[in-house]
């Protein structure tokens, strides 16, 4: 029995959450399903004008991604809290923020990555110019991890609070706004064939900020929730 290294612990936490998700694919499906539903809801309302659809597509994709990722937030720490795993994590000699990063990574792989992968389908639905696909994937790839990170804060803060799960979302959505704005503008700009390095670099910067700051915030919130 040797001392477990930092990263092996992180990997195990990640692995665990992924395993649980795989065993009950429900959550995963729900997220994707919601994403697609939201995206397919608008064409019906809009009617024939395709250029209108083309304009709203980026925004819709992003809002859908935003809302979809909030769906799984409530369960992010709640189950660990209920079954006592969280206590064990708080008592772990490894830095808590490390375990948190593991969990957030898992959350992104479960609720964020699938959206990125399926997004081209939606772009097709709103017939986006093919050039903008790359931009969309990039933007989502940079943006969705941020959604998970920010969402994690909300989830940790509302841990152990009764309610219909609305509070978490209410706390988190305002913080999502910058991601939403730059993400969607990246897509629409690239659709009109312009340069989007600006938006992407902003997203990247935000992501770095998030990676630096959120694990701390989440760990603090978790300790507060349990004591």
């Amino acid at each position: 029995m040797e001392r477990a290294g930092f990263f092996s612990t992180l990997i195990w936490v990640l692995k665990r959450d992924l395993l649980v998700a795989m065993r009950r694919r429900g959550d995963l499906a729900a997220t994707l399903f919601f994403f697609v539903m939201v995206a397919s809801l608008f064409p019906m309302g809009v009617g024939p004008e395709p250029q209108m659809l083309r304009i709203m597509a980026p925004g819709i994709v992003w809002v859908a991604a935003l809302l979809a990722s909030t769906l799984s937030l409530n369960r992010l720490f709640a189950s660990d809290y209920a079954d006592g795993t969280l206590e064990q994590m708080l008592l772990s000699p490894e830095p808590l923020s490390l375990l948190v990063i593991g969990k957030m990574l898992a959350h992104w792989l479960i609720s964020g990555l699938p959206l990125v992968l399926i997004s081209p389908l939606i772009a097709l639905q709103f017939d986006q110019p093919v050039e903008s696909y790359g931009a969309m994937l990039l933007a989502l790839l940079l943006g969705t991890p941020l959604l998970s990170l920010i969402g994690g804060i909300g989830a940790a803060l509302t841990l152990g609070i009764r309610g219909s799960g609305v509070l978490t979302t209410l706390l988190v959505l305002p913080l999502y706004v910058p991601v939403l704005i730059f993400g969607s503008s990246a897509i629409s700009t690239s659709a009109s064939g312009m340069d989007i390095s600006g938006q992407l670099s902003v997203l990247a910067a935000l992501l770095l900020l998030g990676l630096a700051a959120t694990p701390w915030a989440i760990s603090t919130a978790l300790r507060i929730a349990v004591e």
Partner: protein
Amino acid sequence: MNLFKYSSPATFYPLAGKLAPWFGLAAGLLTVWGLYIGFFRAPTDFQQGEAYRIIFIHVPAAWMSMFLYLVMAAWAGVGLVFNTRLSSMMANALAPTGAMFTFVALVTGALWGKPTWGTWWAWDARMTSELILLFLYLGYMALHASIEDIRRADKACAVLALVGAVNVPIIYYSVKWWNTLHQGASVSMTAAPKMASIMLQGMFIMMVAAWMYSIAVVLTRVRRIIRERERQTVWLRELQTEEATA
């Protein structure tokens, strides 16, 4: 050390009690003066006619709303780091007033928007960011309301306020930037060409009045909070029995 002396509720409670009325008085007088200037001295605006007179509450409210959030976050942060009870109480006392001003800014703005742009609501940069700010306030208050254990509520809300404070500027500028993207459709809220200095003067006075009001209300609310929380402490009981006998 003096600062820490006043960071204890026991010493702050009576102090706040003494100060609050004076700020309240100042707020009242300044409001009267400001409104007098606003309505009787300031001339009609050649562009908007009388509609612009909303500015005397709208703008102070708008700025107060943003400023109070930062102040709140600051107190919350201090409370989280130094674990001083009073700071957290201050943060709590600030939230409702901030939310109130945000709401006022939004409604007066809407009421201003109808005559000037012909619509109650437009997704203009400042309006949008104000709306988001309102949600930040509401989130803060909702979170605090839904955690029974007050110490926990304070800490959790402190984290939220800090995260929010980091985001407020990011949100504000990203919204600004977003709005310039879609300049075509958005309505301009650029400063009316030349606001007569007397208008600015009135606006400024109302701004100070809003300040005084906030301070007065917050101090009073802090006293309430101290009462609610420190009920079982000795000093408060003594104080109360004094008040009761007096």
